C-alpha cells in the first residue's frame, strides 16, 4: 500500500511540473508579440498609429505607374495606416516598418512605393498616411490576424494591431 502511495504522489508531482512547463513555454514564445485591439495603438517612443483599412488587391499601381502583380497563388493585402510621429525626436532610430501577421508568423512588406500623397515610410516629427503592401499566399489569407509595428525601445519589439482582411 505504501509503495502505491509513493507512485501516486510521484505521478501527481510529475503532472504538476509538466503542466507548469507547458504553461511557461506557451507563455514565452521565441518571438513574443503584444496584441492590441481597438484599431489604434501608441508605442513607447510616443508615436501613434491607427489602422484605416486592411484590404486585398489583385494588383497594385505604384507612384511610377508600374503595375505590380503577385506571384501565382498569392494576392496582395494592403494596409493603410494613419500615423502621428510628431513626438518622436530621434529621427536616426525611428522607422515604422510594418509587417503583416498571422497567428504563426509574419510577412514582410513588398517593395512597393504607394502613389502620392500616400507615403511608404513614416518620418519622425511628422504625421500622415503610410501604405504598405504584403504578398500573401491565397490559402493563408484567412489566417491574417493583424498589422505589426516595430517598438524598438520597448521590452517586446513586435506590437500587433489585431485586424482581419476586409
Amino acid at each position: 500500500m505504501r509503495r502505491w502511495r509513493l507512485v501516486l504522489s510521484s505521478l501527481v508531482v510529475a503532472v504538476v511540473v509538466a503542466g507548469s512547463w507547458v504553461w511557461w513555454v506557451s507563455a514565452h514564445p521565441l518571438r513574443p508579440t503584444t496584441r492590441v485591439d481597438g484599431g489604434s495603438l501608441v508605442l513607447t517612443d510616443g508615436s501613434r498609429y491607427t489602422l484605416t483599412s486592411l484590404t486585398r488587391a489583385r494588383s497594385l499601381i505604384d507612384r511610377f505607374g508600374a503595375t505590380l502583380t503577385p506571384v501565382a497563388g498569392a494576392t496582395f493585402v494592403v494596409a493603410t495606416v494613419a500615423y502621428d510621429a510628431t513626438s518622436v525626436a530621434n529621427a536616426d532610430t525611428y522607422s515604422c516598418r510594418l509587417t503583416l501577421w498571422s497567428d504563426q508568423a509574419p510577412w514582410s512588406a513588398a517593395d512597393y512605393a504607394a502613389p502620392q500623397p500616400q507615403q511608404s515610410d513614416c518620418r519622425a516629427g511628422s504625421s500622415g498616411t503610410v501604405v504598405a503592401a504584403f504578398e500573401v499566399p491565397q490559402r493563408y489569407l484567412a489566417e491574417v490576424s493583424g498589422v505589426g509595428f516595430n517598438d524598438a525601445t520597448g521590452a517586446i519589439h513586435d506590437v500587433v494591431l489585431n485586424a482581419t482582411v476586409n
Partner: protein
Amino acid sequence: MVSQRRSADHTEIGILALTRRFGTELGALALAGGRAWIHLLPQLLALTLLGWSAYYGSVLLSARLAVWSAWLVIVGLALGVTARLATLVVSLRVVAEHLGVSTLLRSLASDERIDDDRDQSLSRLLTITMLPFLAVYASFGYVNSFVHDLAMMSVTSIGLATLLQDLNPTTSTVAMVAVGVVIVGLFLARRGLDRLLDRRRTVVLGIVAVVIEASFLLIVALSGFRLVEAFQLWLNDRAVRSWIDTAMHTLSQLLHIDLPVFFTTVWEIFVESVWPVLWEVISQPLAWLALTALVFGSRVLSLQDLWTQTPEQQSTPSRLAQIRGQLAQASGLRRAVLRVQDAFFSDVDDKYLPTWWALKLVLRAGWLPLAAFVTAYNLVRLSGEWVEVQVLRAIGGGSFTEGLLLAPVVALIPDVVVLSAQLALLGAAFARVLQQRERSDSPRTAAPAPGDRRTSAAEVVLVAALLAGFTGLSLLEPSQSAQQHTVAVGTPSTLDGKLVTVHKIRYGDSLASASNPELGRSRLAFVVVTAAVYARSGPATTVTMQLHNGSRRYHSGSWGSFGLNAELGFQQSGDLVFEVDPADLSSHLEAVMTTSAFVTGFHDEVHIELGIPDSAPAQVAGQQVFVVAAPPREAP
C-alpha cells in the same frame, strides 16, 4: 617448438575458460539486476519520476527567478540538484535492502564492526552521502545539462545573452569582483556550516550544506570558465605564444614531421576514440558503483583494515588530524595558513576521500565482475539512447518551441525508465562485489596455483577484446542528429517544420547566368544543386546546405544562393553552387541540409544522396552550367 605449442594451447583453453566465466558473470548479474528491477518497478519508477520532476521543476523555477536576477538561478538549480540526488540515494538504498546488502555487510565482519548511524535513518544517510555524490555527478557533465536547459528556457524570457552576460565575470572589474566574492563567500559559508554540523548535526543543516555546495559548483560552471577563457585569450596575445609557435615550426623542420598536424591528429584520436571509452564507457559506471558503495559507507574498508591489522599497526593520523593538532598550538600567520589547509583538507575528507575508499573497495572485486558490470551498464545505456533516438525520429523534428515542449517527455526515457534499470543493476553489482569479498576473505580460499602465466596471458587477451568491445560500444553512440533523414533527389523531406527538396544536380568547370555569361571558371569542378524550401508552417528560417564526402565538407559559394529562406506559405527555390575537388565527385558525395537558426529544438538534418556517377570527373572538363541564383518565389 613443442613447449611453445603446448603453451599456446593452454592459453587458448585459458581464454575459453575465462570467456565462459565472463559470460556466466554477465548472465548472473543481468538476472539479479533484472529480477530486482521487476520486483521493485513501482518504487523505482516513482522515485526516478520524482527525480525527473525535481530536475525540470528546478529549471522552471530558475527560469522564473532569472527574470529578477541571474544570481538567483544558482539557488534554484542547487535545490533541484539536491532533490534529484536525494531520490537517487533513496533508490539505491531501496534496491540494496531488497538484495540483502545489509546482511552481507554484517557477515563480512561480526565482532569488529563499527556501528554506523547511516543505517538508522534515511535522512542521516542523505546528509552523509550527498557531497560525494554531488562531486561525481558534476564531473560527469550532469550539471552542464542543467545549465544548457536553463539557457534554452531563458532564450524565450530574458534572452540567452542576458543570462550569460550577467554571470560573466570578464565584462568588467565589478563583475569579476562580484563573482569572486560570491565564490569565496559560498566556500566560507560551507566551512562555517561544517563547524556547526560538528557541534550539532541535523538533517536541515546537512541539506543546507549540500545546497550551498551545489551553489558553489554551479557558479563555477556558469561563470568560472569565462576566467579560464579570458586567461587563454590573454596568453594568445603574449610574446610567449609566438615563441612556442616558432619553436614548434623549427622542430618540425628539424624532424621533418609536421608537428602541429601530428599533435592535432593525436589529440583528435584521443578525444574521439580513447577518451570516450575511458570516461563514459568505463569510468562512469565504476564511479556510480563506488557511489553505491558509499551509500553503505566506506566503513567497509575500515573493517578490512581492522581485520588485517593489530591496533599497533593502525595507520598514522591523517593529514587533517595532523593539521588540526598543529592549529591548536599555532598563532599569527602560521595559524592563518593552517586554517586554509584545514579548510582544504576537510573538503577532501568530506568529498573525495570517502569516494576514493569506496572506489578501492569496488576495484578489489576483481576485473571479471567489474568488466561484466561495465558491459551490462553500457548495454542498458545504449539501449535507452537507441530508443530515445527512434522516438525523436518518429516525432520528425519541429520548431524550437515544439522541441522545448517535448524535451521533458523524451527525457522520461533516459531519466526514468533507463535510470531505474541502471539503479537495479548497480544494486545487484554491489551485492556481487560484497559476495566476492566474502569469498576472498574466507580462510578456506585457495592460494593462486603456480604456473598461472597462461591464465595471465588469457586475461590479457580477454581484457584486450573487452577494450575493443568497449571502443566499439562508444562508437555505437547514436548520432547527435537524431532527426536525420536520408532521401534521394526529387524526394521532399521535412526540416524544422519546412519541406525541403533537391530537384537536380549539374556539374562542370564553368558557370553562366542570365546577366553574366562568364560567371565563374574553375580548375576544380563546380557542382550546382537546385533546391527548394516550402514553409508550410512557422516563421521563416534560412536553410543552408553543405556537400559531404567522407570527412570533407564544402560550403556554397557566392556564385549562387548561400541559403534558402521562405516566408509562411511560400516556396523559395535557388541554385547553390559548390567548388569541389574532382576526386570527390563520386557516388559518395551527399548534400546535407540544416537550418541556420541560432537556437533549435531538435538536431534536424536532411541527407540527400546525389547519385553522382563515379565517372563524373571525366565529364567535368568543358562543361558549362547555367545558374539561376534567386528565382522568384511561388505560392503552392
